[in-house]
């Protein structure tokens, strides 16, 4: 019921909208993709089963997808099957193996995959994705492509309509306010804090995603020329831009947990040690994680989240359709549903999942906008800081290699 009232108005003017978008926003890549219209897609999708390969490490996310499956079945006759995975890279690997084994157009096992960053860059580079579809989705019109430019550029790699934005992420720190009275507001203050509380701060070991992000945040704060980070990495650029970063880490590491000689495997381990009292602060990519954990009784209500005052790295996570997806129409329909204001508002609700929306809420009709208003919860970020763009995806590997050489052995 809810989603019908929502999606229907979008459908009425979607075709013109998508045509306009076609003409204006996207150039060559969309042109060959959409010979079919949205009602055609809806028809084709009915009765299809969509195997959505999505990280399943959170019971809230799994429950949200169950809700989405029920809505999709009822309103569109599409069966959404959540294929639970622990790492999106496994899916990329499977699709690549399928391609090497000569699987054709509709002979795959994955219809939709939750993805971003390096994994997307790899799939795009290796031709593992289907034709561009994102900008032709009726609900794409509400996406905040101006205010949230990362919805079109994934780790500085243009999405070219090959993936549809789903949610926003931003590097966020959290700590028990009773133990950490003055949260650090940049890397320099973090260093001062580490000096005053030796052994109580750490970050996950790169190539862990959160660990690499911490290093990238430090890189952005220290690089002589931030613009160079948006370009593909070169040995010269790495040497020039990262030199102050290594100096900073050299200074920081002796004061970290276990003297910076050992690093935890992932952010969850950091969070657990923070909850146990072994560390004073933890980090996450979901600004609402601490609030979620408080609601789940795994963190005390005195925990607070914050982002560095001048901004922290942020990005968007997406859903993409592999080249050999058997149910491409169904997958597009699911991607469109996930972008609908109802689905996005529910996802942003802290009681459900707490994943920030990709939509431009201010531009939505009043009725839809109202869905996004929810009371603030303990543990939420009080003042949102600016989003700093990710460096180009190629920096990830270069930074990880150099980090490992310097600190990982």
């Amino acid at each position, binding site marked *: 019921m809810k989603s019908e009232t929502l999606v229907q108005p979008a459908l009425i003017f979607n075709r013109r909208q998508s045509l306009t978008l076609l003409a204006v926003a996207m150039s060559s890549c969309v042109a060959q993709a959409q010979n079919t219209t949205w009602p055609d897609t809806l028809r084709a999708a009915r009765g299809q089963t969509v*195997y959505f390969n999505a*990280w*399943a*490490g*959170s*019971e809230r996310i799994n429950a949200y997808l169950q809700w989405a499956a029920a809505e999709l079945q009822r309103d569109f006759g599409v069966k959404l*099957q959540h*294929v*639970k*995975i*622990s*790492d*999106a*890279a*496994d*899916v*990329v*690997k*499977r699709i*690549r*193996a*399928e391609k090497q*084994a000569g699987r054709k157009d509709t002979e795959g*096992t*994955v219809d939709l995959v939750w993805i971003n960053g*390096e*994994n997307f*860059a*790899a*799939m795009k580079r*290796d031709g593992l994705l289907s034709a561009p579809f994102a900008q032709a989705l009726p609900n794409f019109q509400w996406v905040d492509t101006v205010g949230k430019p990362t919805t079109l550029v994934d780790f500085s790699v243009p999405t070219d309509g090959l993936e549809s934005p789903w949610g926003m992420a931003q590097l966020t720190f959290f700590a028990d306010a009773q133990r950490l009275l003055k949260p650090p507001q940049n890397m320099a203050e973090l260093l001062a804090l580490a000096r005053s509380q030796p*052994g*109580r701060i750490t970050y996950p*070991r790169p*190539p862990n995603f959160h660990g690499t992000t911490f290093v990238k945040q430090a890189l952005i704060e220290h690089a002589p020329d931030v613009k160079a980070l948006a370009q593909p990495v070169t040995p010269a650029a790495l040497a020039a831009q990262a030199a102050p970063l290594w100096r900073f880490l050299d200074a920081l590491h002796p004061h970290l*947990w*276990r003297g910076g*000689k*050992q*690093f*935890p*495997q*992932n952010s*969850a*381990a950091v*969070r*657990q040690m923070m*909850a*146990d*009292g*072994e560390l004073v602060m933890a980090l996450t990519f979901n600004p609402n994680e601490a609030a979620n954990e408080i609601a*789940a*009784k*795994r*963190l*005390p209500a005195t925990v607070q989240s914050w982002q560095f005052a001048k901004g922290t790295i942020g990005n968007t996570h997406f859903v993409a359709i592999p080249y050999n997806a058997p149910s491409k129409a169904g997958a597009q329909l699911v991607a469109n549903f996930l972008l609908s204001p109802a689905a996005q508002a529910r996802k942003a609700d802290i009681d459900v999942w707490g994943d920030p929306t990709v939509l431009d809420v201010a531009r939505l009709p009043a009725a839809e906008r109202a869905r996004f208003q929810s009371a603030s919860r303990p543990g939420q970020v009080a003042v949102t800081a600016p989003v700093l763009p990710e460096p180009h995806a190629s920096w990830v590997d270069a930074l990880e290699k150099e980090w*490992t*050489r310097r600190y*990982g*052995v």
Partner: protein
Amino acid sequence: MSFLPAFLLALIAAVPMGWALWAAASQALDVSAWQALWADPQTLRAWGMTLWTGLASTVLVWWTVARLLAHGFIRQQLARWLTHVPALLATPHAAMAIGLVLWLSPSGWALRLVSPGLSGFDAPPPWVTTQDPWGLGLILALWLKEVPFLLWVAATQLQREDLRRRWQAEFALAQTLGHTPTTAFAQVVWPQLAPRLRWPLLAVLAYGLTVVDMALIIGPATPPTLAVLAWQWLGDADAAMQAQGAAAAGCLTVSVAILAGVTVMVLRAWARLLRVASSPLLLQGESPWVGLVIGGAYLAVWWALAVGSVSGVWPFPQLWPSLWTGDAWAQVIASAPTVWTTLGLAAASASVCLVWSVAWLELTPRRWQQALRPWWLLPLVLPSVLWVVGLYSVALQWRLEGQWLGLLLAHAVMVLPYVLLALEPAYLAVDPRQSAVVASLGQGRWTDLLRIKWPLLKRAIASAWAVGFAVSVAQYLPTLYVGAGRFATVTTEAVTLASGAQRSLMSAYAALQMLLPVLAFALAAYLGRPRQFEKIGSMKDNT
């Protein structure tokens, strides 16, 4: 015995295995990947850590099992202990590691018990008790997990009625010649038992060298073991990194092969030494405390997991959580449907392997069995990451990805060696003269099998099936890849949820993972119980 059935049986098992192996080998033999592996600064130290933890844990396990068997054999307590072993076997590896961390980490229970009162700590001290750079935590976890396995395999040998009787007699004889019980065991029984534990010991060694999940939780992190690195690289989105991971898996395989050879040589030398040495090396003295330590550790780990599964906020140094929550158990109940997939798959693969093993042992010449034995046991000793690569290639080439049949095949390959290992000793111990007697009474072969031989072997058959079942339940990567993630089992569910690393969820799911194998072992124990000759007994009473 005819040639054709034996040949067909060999073919059925050898084709998928050989194909998978070939596919895996061809991926692990990429020259540039080996160069990249060599050039990676972490490789050498990670490899050294792998060798150290794998070898140290194997030596400890061997020593412990030798002492426990000596103690159990002399005191006739083995049978009593063995009723407890299945529960230890069914404890998932990862759960053991989590439980140990709950106790031993700087914020763990051990320190909470004495804080802040005795220790004076208000916050966890900066001690390196878990994820230690020396790999001691990992060695401890491996030791606790592998001792029950080797003990259990040794027990299947002692279940052989013929051996048990002979060894008891020889043991008694040695004592009448003036040897102490320990010396008698060390010089008479152990030299006969030890060679039979060679393959299982190699499996322990291989497991120690290639374990990933335990090493992630309790092992060193900087650098981790080579198996962890291989797993991380294989999971990278970049194809070149994946190739490097495959090369690392290949490197692990070569390490396992070389060390297995060394181990066999050392065992032979040790056996020779035992024969000439007047004092029973390493077996001297009794050590009942070893068994108690292991049993106590398991109880402590289960207890920690039970409390962990309902714990919410639990800051140091509080002894008990300040907030409790049943959310994790609600999740476990919500994923109950996966139990049925798991059950079906495990029952099917264990049954297929059991039927194959029985047919193999019944129909093929002894010569064949001995010649091909190392092949069937290969999945035990090669790194599982390598098998996954191979099995997945086979599934793709045969168009079985995402199919139940493909999944069954993948599980069967991993399950087969355990079932064969569990069944073989007892099966070969059956006195062939029995069948001759049956035939002389004018009964056919089927009558012999159905009424005499298999009923006599039901205990071994049931427990082999239970082991196969437990192995199938524990499979993660083959299930994920070959099943294209479409078949959710309790293990895939547990591992995917564990990627969020919620302590309570991981603890609660460990219970779910234990449940099915424990039930299977209980069923096997029930089916394999000795026959009660009630009529004879009641007749006796009446007279």
